């Protein structure tokens, strides 16, 4: 057991509690300064992830087979720190920090409850951290619930607004349904395997607890319908977080109704937490060939439907937050392409895209926050003439949307390239790559429609946006990441390729001829 590994998590939880307590002792007129405390927490946690003590080899080789290094686990194997969890934790830290910078303006409109907002945001962050490191189904479930429950409250945070409350309620109901489905799935898996742990625990050379990875590797656990249905239900439940069909219906309504900074947080944090768990579960079951063979068409089907749903649904939208909601469903479809392909390049692309998605989407939402503060509207028509009013803001939104659409030389392009490319390796998934390409074109249309309004329409709303320093920082960081990541993507691509290799997915596409 190695509790040092939990340092970032401990920092975030203690930080969340500290912010909550600090709020109680601050006089009402000085609560505005609380954001700096909240901001410090993800930054310190981010710094902590770079500690050398946390740099433990995730896998070790025993008798020629790569197995999980017990040194990289903690709390009886429930907590696992590998390259993927490290990358995602850093992404979560950046996301949380940027969201906290964005939220300050929104919160100043509220008289009370700042402390609650910040601490809930930080608790959600701790949940995402544990998601990234979850190594059994129970931790996975509890960690995910921390994220979900925090978001129930955050989404409904603006109590004076009916839409915010309604969005919170919708999230709550759909979230409960998905949690129930997932638990059902976990129960199935437990029923079929007798364990909810991913790894076995060995004491004095004797296995005291069995784990799925080892059961599958040794062939003690074989493919069964029940196991498959369980994993599928788990994926569907996780699909709620990642806004995959069929549990995606809440997305446009909640994105529209929630306070915009919360929407931004939801669209990156909660979504990535779902994806990282999908990757983890898939990785565990990728040791069984028949399981992967059965899961692949299922995930491909989900990916294709999600792509079409999100991108077609976005076409008629007139509200930018709703549009971004549909777009986020579409983006989820792309990431699912890589997960469905289930081999190194696909997983590497998935991780690349997830990281890129954080900065891209947050940049878009930062502009949405600023514009809506000036125009008091989320209608896309009110973005007309933004290019003249706020050229820099318009440029930032344009870059963010182009990156979402996958236009070079921005970072989103390489993500899409790797994801769609990965499906072309396997004969049975080639159709999915074509679906992805068709959807790139559809998506380009609605993103460009927004850009057209920004630059080619006369302004409807004369109010110019005033950009506070904090949001300038957000935009500067995200723009720098978008452009640098697009011009020099090698660093991130190498990193994700390394992680994908560590995760030990198939090194070659399944069923694909190697040309």
């Amino acid at each position: 057991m190695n509790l040092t590994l939990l340092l970032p998590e401990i920092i975030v939880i203690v930080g969340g509690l500290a912010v909550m307590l600090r709020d109680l002792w601050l006089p009402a007129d000085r609560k505005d300064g609380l954001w700096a405390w909240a901001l410090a927490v993800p930054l310190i946690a981010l710094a902590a992830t770079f500690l050398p003590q946390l740099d433990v080899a995730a896998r070790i080789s025993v008798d020629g087979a790569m197995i999980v290094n017990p040194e990289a686990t903690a709390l009886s194997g429930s907590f696992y720190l590998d390259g993927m969890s490290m990358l995602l934790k850093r992404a979560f830290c950046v996301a949380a920090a940027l969201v906290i910078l964005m939220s300050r303006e929104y919160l100043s409109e509220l008289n009370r409850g700042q402390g609650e907002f910040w601490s809930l945001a930080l608790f959600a962050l701790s949940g995402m951290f544990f998601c990234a490191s979850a190594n059994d189904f129970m931790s996975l479930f509890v960690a995910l619930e921390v994220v979900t429950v925090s978001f129930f409250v955050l989404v409904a945070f603006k109590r004076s607004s009916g839409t915010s409350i309604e969005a919170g309620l919708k999230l709550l109901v759909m979230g409960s349904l998905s949690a129930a489905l997932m638990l059902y799935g976990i129960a199935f898996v437990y029923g079929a395997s007798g364990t909810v742990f991913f790894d076995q625990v060995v004491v004095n050379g004797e296995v005291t607890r069995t784990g799925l990875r080892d059961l599958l590797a040794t062939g003690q656990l074989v493919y069964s319908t029940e196991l498959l249905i369980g994993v599928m239900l788990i994926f569907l439940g996780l699909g709620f977080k990642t806004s995959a069909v069929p549990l995606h219906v809440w997305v446009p309504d909640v994105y529209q109704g929630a306070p915009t900074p919360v929407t931004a947080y939801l669209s990156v944090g909660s979504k990535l937490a779902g994806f990282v768990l999908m990757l983890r579960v898939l990785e565990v079951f990728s040791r069984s060939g028949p399981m992967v063979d059965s899961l692949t068409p299922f995930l491909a089907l989900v990916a294709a439907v999600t792509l079409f749903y999100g991108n077609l649904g976005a076409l008629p939208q007139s509200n930018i937050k709703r549009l971004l909601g549909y777009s986020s469903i579409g983006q989820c479809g792309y990431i699912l392409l890589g997960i469905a392909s289930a081999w190194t390049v696909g997983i590497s692309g998935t991780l690349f895209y997830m990281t890129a998605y954080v900065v891209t989407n947050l940049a878009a939402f930062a502009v949405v926050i600023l514009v809506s503060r000036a125009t008091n509207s989320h209608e896309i028509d009110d973005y007309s003439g933004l290019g003249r009013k706020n050229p820099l803001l318009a440029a930032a939104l344009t870059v963010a949307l182009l990156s979402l659409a996958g236009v070079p030389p921005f970072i989103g392009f390489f993500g899409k390239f790797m994801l769609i490319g990965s499906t072309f390796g396997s004969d049975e998934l080639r159709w999915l790559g074509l679906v992805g390409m068709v959807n790139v074109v559809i998506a380009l249309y609605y993103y460009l429609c927004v850009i057209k309004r920004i630059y080619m329409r006369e302004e409807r709303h004369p109010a110019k946006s005033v950009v506070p320093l904090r949001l300038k920082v957000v935009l500067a960081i995200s723009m720098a990441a978008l452009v640098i990541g697009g011009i020099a993507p090698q660093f991130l691509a190498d990193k994700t390729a390394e992680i994908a290799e560590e995760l030990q997915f198939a090194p070659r596409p399944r069923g694909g001829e190697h040309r």
Partner: protein
Amino acid sequence: MEGLGIQLAFYSFAAVTIGSALLATMAKKIVNSAFALMATFFGVAGIYGVLGSDFMAVTQIVVYVGGILILLCFGMLLTDRVPDEFRVRSPRRYVGASIAATLTFVGLAWAISGTAWARLPHITDGSAEALPTTALIGNALLTDYLLPFEFASIVLLVVLVGAARVARGGTR
């Protein structure tokens, strides 16, 4: 003899569960639904007991009957107007719901019947027969399941904060 008794118990509890669940779904008055639900919870608790999960059975009764159901009743009392006919009765909803329910049932039945339960090693090795299970669960929670157990406290904290936030009166 013992096998027959257990089977008899199982089927009667199952009948109670399903029957009361149907009643809860079909009842015209919400109060009736709530009371039918109580029977369902008892039925499920009974099934837990039959399956040898004494702790789960007790928890089911304490939490669901003693907590959730009472909460439901409070909710009904505090809501201003609960229409007697709270359910929109329209045949088309039944059709839609029946299709969904049938699909779910078919899927589950398929999955469950398609698995050779009797051959799964962890079911046949007899490790699940120790009673009472309370000590086992307690041990497991503080060893193997330490992380989820501890982290559940954060869930509860978040729920408390959230409840305070959402329920708080006053402005904004």
